[in-house]
């Protein structure tokens, strides 16, 4: 794009199609980092990653490197991982514990709230930078924790987190309420899978109910060809998930799909496999259900277990599976490069076998070498590669267009689960962010 005035950006997204520049243009990407990732609430992680004062982990908000700390007062801080002096990354470890954060270059030393505490030869500065706001590690202006999930925004103003999340709060509630002790924790390692494609492609795919039959045809077939193992084995979870991707069209059509304000969406569940779905009757889950009933009562537990969601997407940074205890954070690197960090969670108070199932599930759904995920990544790269074709500028988003049904809480529901409602909804939000006057 040569020009980035509001009118030309508005022309890129139409009711049932989107211009390829939205996925390929590096100038638009830079603008996204400012207007979209620089404004929206982004999920950074979970407070179980920083249980004690002094704990920290590093991550990115869009392209901004940040440190998430728990300060001595117990409050979670999100700090720019960039020394206020000469700009070096202060903190290199993925996670750790520290009383102070020391820049490797000249030894500028910060507290876990970002305040500059000390530096060598401090009397060489007049006035001293120590303790001044200009020479602190810059704090994200807004940080909030919802049900243990850490959110931050790089913009001082904007919608409050609760308004931003809207109906998607219920997906986070579902995530946590499923724990017999009412708490979840990050556990079991982090997959970091990357692809040569735009960050939108993964979010568009996660509520796409038509793709599995085609994209995952080979793993569906390979799993179907496998002779049934006697009894339940380690591989059960993975094999069952591969098979479930081959569910008949009626199942996908019946699955609910909802689009919410700010580009969020979620889909209902397409699983009917009792080994996979905790709400269904299976010996492993009897003990779990009993533990949940001790906290919530029979009705309360039935209500929680009756909430069946597959992927919930909080636009633009996160896609998670409340029922399957997975959270994916999308890190845009360039217009044609994306990294996704995928976390597993342990339901506190649930039987250990459920966590083992979570890990087996993570390996097949989010694993970098998964027979399933690798085909998704391949397709993202094929899209990105072909979007270089300048003779056909448009991507079509018309499935279910015009059939979306207004639903509760300002949401739209797809007439069927295979609608491309979520993609249209994401791009509508994209346009709002990108063209808003600030």
């Amino acid at each position, binding site marked *: 794009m040569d020009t980035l005035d509001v009118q030309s950006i508005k022309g890129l997204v139409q009711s049932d199609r989107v211009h390829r520049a939205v996925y390929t243009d590096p100038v638009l990407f830079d603008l996204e980092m400012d207007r979209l990732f620089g404004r929206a609430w982004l999920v950074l992680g979970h407070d179980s990653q920083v249980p004690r004062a002094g704990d920290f982990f590093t991550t990115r908000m869009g392209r901004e490197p940040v440190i998430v700390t728990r300060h001595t007062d117990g409050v979670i801080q999100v700090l720019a991982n960039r020394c206020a002096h000469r700009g070096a990354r202060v903190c290199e470890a993925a996670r750790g514990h520290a009383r102070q954060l020391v820049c490797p270059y000249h030894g500028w030393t910060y507290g876990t709230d970002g305040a500059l505490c000390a530096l060598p030869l401090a009397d060489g500065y007049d006035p001293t930078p120590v303790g001044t706001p200009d020479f602190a590690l810059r704090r994200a202006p807004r940080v909030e924790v919802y049900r243990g999930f850490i959110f931050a925004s790089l913009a001082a103003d904007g919608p409050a987190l609760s308004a931003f999340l809207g109906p998607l709060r219920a997906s986070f509630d579902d995530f946590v309420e499923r724990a017999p002790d009412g708490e979840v924790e990050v*556990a*079991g390692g982090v997959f970091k899978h*990357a692809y040569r494609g735009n960050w939108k492609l993964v979010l568009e795919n996660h509520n796409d109910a038509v793709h599995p039959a085609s994209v995952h045809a080979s793993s569906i*077939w*390979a799993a179907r060809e496998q002779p049934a193992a006697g009894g339940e084995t380690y591989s059960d979870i993975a*094999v069952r998930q591969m098979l479930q991707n081959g569910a008949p069209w009626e199942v996908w059509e019946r699955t609910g799909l909802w689009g919410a304000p700010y580009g969020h969406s979620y889909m209902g569940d397409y699983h009917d496999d009792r080994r996979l779905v905790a709400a269904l009757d299976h010996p492993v889950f009897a003990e779990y259900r009993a533990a949940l009933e001790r906290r919530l009562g029979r009705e309360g537990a039935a209500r929680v277990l009756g909430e069946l969601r597959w992927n919930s997407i909080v636009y633009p940074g996160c896609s998670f599976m409340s029922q399957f205890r997975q959270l994916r954070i999308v890190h845009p690197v360039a217009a044609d490069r994306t990294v996704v960090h995928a976390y597993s969670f342990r339901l506190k108070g649930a039987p250990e076998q459920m966590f*083992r199932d979570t890990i087996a599930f993570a*390996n097949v759904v989010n694993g970098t*070498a998964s027979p399933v995920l690798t085909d998704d990544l391949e397709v993202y790269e094929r899209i990105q590669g072909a979007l270089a074709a300048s003779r056909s500028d448009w991507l079509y988003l018309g499935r279910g267009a015009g059939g979306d049904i207004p639903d509760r809480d300002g949401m739209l529901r797809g007439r069927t689960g295979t609608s491309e409602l979520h993609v249209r909804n994401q791009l509508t939000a994209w346009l709002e962010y990108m063209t808003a006057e600030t």
Partner: protein
Amino acid sequence: MSAARTESEQFLYHEGWLLDHGRLKEWLALFTDDATYWVPLEVGQTDPFTTSSIIFDDRPLLEIRARQFGHARAHARVPPPRTVHQVGNVRILDDDGRELRVGSTLVMVEYRQERQRTWGALVEHRLRRGPDGLRIAAKRVDLVNSEAELDGIVCLF
């Protein structure tokens, strides 16, 4: 010990040769029915059940993984990656008469979709003696970059 080392070396070279020539059925036949094939996610990972793995396959999953290459619409696997396995530094770590524990290093070049990638790993095989010679009871491949941000992996190490 030296005969065992020679036998193990020849076995590992043969395994690499099978993989580099796409002879996956013969490669699968090297594994025992109770075998595991493990590519840990974390450095020094001790457990495949409570921490995720890049790959942790029992025999059924390994068969599915190998079979997938045979589907016409295996998008990420047709055509399959071309590889060269360079196996070195073979050492017998333990030998109880029934099983050998063999350490080796792997440097592997992979080519797929106009892109060449290089992999390095510390490898450990548990090789079980049987009437037909050695079989793989467990294989563990610790990639030097297992914790990195990685593009999708479809090659077999």
